[in-house]
């Protein structure tokens, strides 16, 4: 059986970023005489007022290693990332994005998102948002709500129709339309507003006090699920590759807890948590 290390798929080492992410997927994966869903990866994408198509992007449909990288991407002085590397091959994909800076609010030395045999992993090195330290190995789908300015989802996973898994490293939502318009802006958030205006290319009022003041100057700009701007940093898609019953590769360090096999139905279901919602029912 022809097996290769994903870490070796990229022939070019780019300093510390590659060295660190190489640790994420060090176990062997199948590439040649096996089959499974296509693998793919990209470093960054954005939708909303600022649009960035998935960049750099690679895909491996036949299991052959694909690799790409950029040394820097800075579409705006308030959004910049350093070295971006992406790799994909049969049953595995990985991306690492170094020197992340979003509005000066979200920073990280490295965000590594990987997927192997249908299992996802995320590692954030020296990450912080609004001064709050981000976990190195977040729980899959962990959300950080910094309303009204930002919300983050870390390591979210989606099962695709072809049974592959897409792991999204960090999804940043800027000014979600569902936030409380009367919420007061903190001093730190106010400091970030000039950068936000520059990022989105809009004029904001000189001294907004509440989030509604900001939203009012952005009327009509909301997109999709009422979020003004989405920025995705790191996405890796892979599925389990079949190798004639040999089993899958070893789990990667930093695997999400949610990837544990489905347990027998033994635990009693939890009592519901009463949440705040607005759904008119039939009364």
């Amino acid at each position: 059986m022809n097996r290769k290390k994903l870490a070796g798929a990229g022939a070019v080492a780019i300093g510390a970023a590659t060295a660190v992410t190489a640790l994420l997927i060090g176990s062997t994966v199948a590439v040649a005489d096996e089959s499974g869903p296509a693998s793919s990866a990209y470093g960054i994408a954005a939708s909303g007022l600022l649009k960035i198509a998935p960049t750099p992007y690679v895909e491996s449909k036949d299991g052959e290693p694909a690799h790409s990288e950029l040394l820097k991407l800075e579409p705006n002085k308030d959004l910049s990332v350093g070295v971006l590397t992406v790799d994909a091959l049969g049953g595995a994909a990985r991306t690492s994005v170094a020197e992340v800076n979003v509005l000066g609010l979200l920073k990280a030395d490295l965000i590594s998102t990987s997927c192997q045999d249908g299992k996802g992993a995320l590692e954030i090195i020296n990450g912080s948002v609004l001064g709050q330290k981000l976990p190195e190995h977040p729980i899959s789908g962990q959300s950080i709500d910094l309303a009204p300015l930002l919300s983050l989802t870390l390591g979210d996973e989606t099962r695709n129709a072809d049974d592959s898994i897409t792991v999204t490293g960090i999804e940043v939502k800027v000014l979600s339309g569902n936030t409380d318009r009367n919420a007061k802006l903190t001093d730190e958030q106010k400091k970030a507003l000039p950068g936000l205006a520059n990022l989105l290319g809009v004029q904001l009022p000189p001294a907004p006090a509440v989030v509604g003041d900001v939203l009012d100057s952005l009327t009509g700009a909301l997109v999709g699920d009422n979020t003004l701007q989405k920025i995705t940093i790191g996405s890796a898609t892979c599925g389990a590759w079949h190798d004639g019953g040999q089993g899958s590769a070893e789990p990667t360090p930093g695997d999400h807890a949610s990837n544990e096999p489905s347990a027998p139905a033994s635990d009693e279901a939890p009592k519901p948590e009463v949440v705040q919602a607005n759904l008119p029912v039939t009364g």
Partner: protein
Amino acid sequence: MAVGVAALLLAVAAFLGLGGPSGGSSSLTGTRNDTAAPPVPGVVPAADELPLSSTYTTVEEAPTDVGTGTTDGTVVHPLRETPVRDAPDGTAIARMGSEQFGDTWLPVIGEQGGWLHVLLPSKPARSTGWILAADVKRATTPYVITVHLDSKRLELVKNGTVTDTWTVGTGKPSAPTPAGRTFLLGAFSDSKQKYSPVILPLGTHSPTHDSFGGGPGTVAIHTWPSSDVFGTATSDGCIRVPADALEKLTEVPLGTLVLIDER
């Protein structure tokens, strides 16, 4: 390689919307592409093309639940967004997320291999689908809630024994509470609906109100400010219960079956 690099630079620049906001410019200080594969626009997982199964949506292709009885109490919580299929390893017809009103829990009405047959919260009534067992967390609920429309009685059953019975209000003839097997979908407070401190939406909808009050016609269990509605068929489909019933039902795990019959 030089051609490949140049092509990549051009391709990336084209995707950045350089004429966009604030005249922002991209700064590509270096790139290398061993596979010469340019970035591909519109990278969207196939699952994104499927509707999300929720109380707000309709999944016409969903198989209909033909059962009426209880199960072994297995309920599942999706750990990740996962496709809903029309049969074990069948065609993907929808997506199921992990949250709607807090964590989503679905009742399991069947199992085959690594696939679970679950009730869905989307329209039409009695919708079901199959999801991968590997994508869920399992648990069991000892409860079942039964609602008898004719006698207007609601029973809370725990481990097969009726522990509480209440007289309740049901839907009026022009907007009946739908009979069938459904489940507790959530528990929420809504500041815009003052009649009940907590509302328990079910995974079923009014057969006559395709929308109601701006909502999708979701049937729910909740209380009511005046007791004269209990024992009457006067609601627009919801099940109105006394305050002490709501208090107990709010303790029942999500995903618990709600069996509504005409008796």
